[in-house]
């Protein structure tokens, strides 16, 4: 792991040196990492009042909170839908192809409609983050329900357990590892989606900042800061989910499918 990071850094720096020698504006193509780190911690004011660091923190707060809320809504929706689909064959058959389809609609197309429905930029950003994250949660949870060992299922039937009991006692606990697979996939996705939606319209948010920097409104280093920052946060969110999973599953190793992600 460490080795790979070192290798990547070395490669990056080599190319950055080449770029610095051949291009007039190396920071637009590939800046030295030292420059990027410098730009984060420099005291220079980017706009009237903030340094790059303060600006990124403020905008990241907005983006991440929207991503977080959207993520939670997405989880709830995905889980409920998966539950419904597993309860009713008709719903499953109807919903499955459309679940797929929603993923294929470019966000740029959805955004104006959702914007018109909600009438508020911030709310529509949350809604879109939710839409984009609930698919992995739903599909993985369904996979979990489907994978409940039939033997277990039949055992419960032979105990004359009610449907409610079957779900609460065997199926939901069993599908938790699967749910987490979905959660781990969708956590970085929620953040990416939130940033992507930011770029569609002005206001506050990492994506707004990113596109402004790309459009030359401020130094290009802000763009690079955000690229690295978002990658870092994305990975962090993945590990956060793994940690939560480990905490939850420590006292019930029952699932035991041993996903490594």
């Amino acid at each position, binding site marked *: 792991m460490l080795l*790979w990071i070192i290798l990547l850094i070395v490669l990056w720096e080599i190319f950055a040196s080449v770029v610095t020698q051949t291009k007039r504006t190396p920071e637009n193509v590939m800046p030295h990492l030292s420059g990027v780190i410098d730009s984060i911690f420099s005291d220079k004011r980017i706009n009237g009042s903030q340094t790059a660091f303060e600006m990124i923190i403020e905008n990241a707060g907005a983006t991440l909170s929207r991503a977080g809320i959207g993520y939670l809504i997405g989880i709830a929706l995905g889980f409920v839908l998966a539950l419904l689909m597993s309860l009713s064959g*008709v719903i499953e058959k109807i919903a499955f192809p459309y679940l797929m389809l929603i993923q294929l609609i470019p966000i740029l197309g959805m955004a104006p*409609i959702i914007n018109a429905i909600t009438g508020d930029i911030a709310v529509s950003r949350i809604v879109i983050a939710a839409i984009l994250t609930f698919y992995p949660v739903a599909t993985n949870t369904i996979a979990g329900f489907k994978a409940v060992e039939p033997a277990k299922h039949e055992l419960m039937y032979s105990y004359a357990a009610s449907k409610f009991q079957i779900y609460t006692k065997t199926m939901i606990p069993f599908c938790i590892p699967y749910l987490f697979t979905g959660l781990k996939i969708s956590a970085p996705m929620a953040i990416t989606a939130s940033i992507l939606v930011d770029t569609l319209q002005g206001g506050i948010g990492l994506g707004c900042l990113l596109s402004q920097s790309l459009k030359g409104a401020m130094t290009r280093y802000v763009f690079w800061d955000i690229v690295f920052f978002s990658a870092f946060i994305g990975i962090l969110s993945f590990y956060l989910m793994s940690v939560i999973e480990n905490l939850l599953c420590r006292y019930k190793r029952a699932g035991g499918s041993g996903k490594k992600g």
Partner: protein
Amino acid sequence: MRGLKKGSLSQQRDKIESIVYPVLFGVLIMILWQTGVLHKMLNTDDYILPYPDKIVGIISDNSDMIMVNVWASVEVALCGLFLGSLIGYIIAIAATSFPTYGTGGLTIVSAFNAVPIVALAPVIINWTKDVSSVAEERSMVAKILVVTVTSMASMSVNAYRGLTELPPFSDDLMKTYAAGRLTEFVKLRLPNSVPYIFTALRVSVPGSVIGALVSEYFAEYIVGVGRQIRENILIAQYATAWAYIIVACMIGIMLYAMLMIAEAVFLRKRR
């Protein structure tokens, strides 16, 4: 679960149902859409969400131009998907062969997925500036690279699982046959990974289409379904934008259907 002891007759019924129900639902939505009920439900107007007949009309009026854009996007998506999957698989093989360092590499590759594609696309387009002096060519390379990067992660992670999560005792069995590493690889690990390849593709096929569309937003040479969507939304031509959105969905559905067919053919042979 329900289909545990199903006869072939009910299985067939199941199959028909899983086609008929969604189609019926789709028809219902279409009716609601065309009659304007959907607009009332969504609190929007026929401007932001034009009626289906208008969208279809635009598609048929401009079919020549649309096909040009479609081919450009499909080419990018498929080339990128192929390259990305290939590289992803190679990484997975490397990770299986040298687990000490390889797994770290896997993590790095999946980290690429955490970089938003809107940030990735302009960066890659800048990096590929010197590839060719013809804008059309260098834009093509850039777009393909964007899709490559986005489809790499899912393949490498899934293929790695396919190569390592072997059926119980199969590994030991191979050892008792005194099979070499290469034989073990070809006879056991490679076939074992095939279903996982398809799992990966199920994620990366839709992903590659979206990747192609987004990369077109930023590319220098102006062509592609994604570019048309962006351009028409910006100049507020929603009917046309929707026509291209529908076309984009169609591309996704077609590619996914092809994948499903391929999967059915490949996996049946193995049973």
